[in-house]
């Protein structure tokens, strides 16, 4: 596992790996030895939890350091912001999250198409042939992303306008019967 950990350290930018790589591997070695020596260290779940936590931390750390190297600022995944902010606000990180989700969906479609093409069809004449050259990845992703982003901006603007106008509080108002 230590070899795998050292191998995964290559996901980090070189400068970071040079500075902290050995130290991180040393701490991982100590933690691993401790998990093995514990009473339940030979059981599956405690060990699985430990490795899962370590490798997930390593991957998210590498992603964080790369995004920092690209953008020059510390990026943090916006999950906490989503839960803490009002649903009427439009978090700045939403486009990033949307781009990641869309990229995942499009990659899945690409993979599914490739798998489908690898199987021989029983009746090939019944289905139109998929022309891979007609489906280019980046333009398709850009169009989908822009459409989704525009829809989200419009939706947010409507909600924001409703919020500012106080419309969402209309239901809280007492009935005005008896007036006029």
């Amino acid at each position, binding site marked *: 596992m230590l070899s795998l950990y050292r191998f995964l350290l290559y996901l980090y930018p070189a400068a*970071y790996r040079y*500075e*902290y790589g050995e*130290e*991180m591997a*040393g*701490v*991982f070695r*100590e*933690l691993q030895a401790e998990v093995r020596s514990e009473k339940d260290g030979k059981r599956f779940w405690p060990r699985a939890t430990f490795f899962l*936590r*370590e490798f*997930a*931390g*390593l*991957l*998210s*750390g*590498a992603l*964080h*350091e790369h995004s920092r190297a690209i953008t020059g600022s*510390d990026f943090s995944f916006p999950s906490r912001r989503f839960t803490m902010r009002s649903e009427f606000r439009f978090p700045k990180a939403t486009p990033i999250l949307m781009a990641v989700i869309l990229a995942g969906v499009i990659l899945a479609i690409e993979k599914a198409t490739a798998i489908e093409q690898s199987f021989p069809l029983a009746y090939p004449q019944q289905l139109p042939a998929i022309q891979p050259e007609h489906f280019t990845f980046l333009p398709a992703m850009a169009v989908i992303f822009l459409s989704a982003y525009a829809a989200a901006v419009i939706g947010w603007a409507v909600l924001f306008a409703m919020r500012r106008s106080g419309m969402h509080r209309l239901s809280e108002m007492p009935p005005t019967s008896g007036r006029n």
Partner: protein
Amino acid sequence: MEALPLTEPVLLILLSLAEQPRHGYSILKDVEEMSDGRVTLSTGTLYGALRRLLEDGWIERFKEEESSRGRQAYRLTPIGRRNLQLEASRLKHLSRVANLRVARKGF
């Protein structure tokens, strides 16, 4: 730059270093102990936080002379200690307000 209020892992890392200088493994264990096992940091998370704190000048790194392996250890700088005190004061105030409000609600 680390801004106040601090996230819980960063606060726990700073609290761990407030008592004495520590190396990575010792910080992880102390954080776990301080939080009663609720916060368990991975090495990736720990070193990401340490890197930011080092860059901001809140902590500094030095070679542990006592250790035969010459491990790197970390300690708080005066800036880090001052910011930690500020955060502790903020939390103390918040805790006092929360206690008062909760007690008042009881009547």
